[in-house]
């Protein structure tokens, strides 16, 4: 299966701490995206990293991609209670097919 795994399934941290989520995949990808889902705003695109990129930043978000290990990580620095959500990595493979992972549920305690 293309989907791979996300790790951890759930993460609970204090406000101000950093949160790291990992995503692995099994076959080659063209790009990888991270999305956030919470009850208030639904599913929202966060960041896209292409297969020829190794690291990308957007505000408090840092995404890395290691194609040799077939893995990606999302780091949220200085987390806030509003970051509480489920985070999904989405792999885009051949023929522009998209595969969502099972997600990491992040809880940021105030």
């Amino acid at each position: 299966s293309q989907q791979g795994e996300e790790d951890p399934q759930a993460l609970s941290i204090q406000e101000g701490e950093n949160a790291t989520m990992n995503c692995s995949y099994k076959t080659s990808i063209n790009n990888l995206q991270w999305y956030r889902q919470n009850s208030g705003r639904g599913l929202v695109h966060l960041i896209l990293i292409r297969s020829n990129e190794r690291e990308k930043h957007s505000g408090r978000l840092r995404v890395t991609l290691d194609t040799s290990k077939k893995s990606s990580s999302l780091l949220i620095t200085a987390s806030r209670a509003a970051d509480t959500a489920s985070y999904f990595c989405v792999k885009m493979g051949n023929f522009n097919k998209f595969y969502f992972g099972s997600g990491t549920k992040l809880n940021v305690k105030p």
Partner: protein
Amino acid sequence: EAGVAQSPRYKIIEKRQSVAFWCNPISGHATLYWYQQILGQGPKLLIQFQNNGVVDDSQLPKDRFSAERLKGVDSTLKIQPAKLEDSAVYLCASSLGDRVYEQYFGPGTRLTVT
């Protein structure tokens, strides 16, 4: 800019009944997606349209699910007949297409089959 619109927001039906969902993507977005999200899981792509042509429907249960995209804009997803395991949130998303892959999601339709 208006977002992706979906209706209805909630639907409760009995098994073996039929149901239809409607999606209006962001204006100018060529690519439209329908996803099924079962509670506690990530969204699963059901069908992807590029304009009004189907790009991928490999995970669409074609014996009961059908979808169309009228004139490359609005889309409807139908289930006939519904089963208990179809209870899920049905999400519609759109993207510009033409190598722009960020997807914009609608609020979803929560379907309960009893």
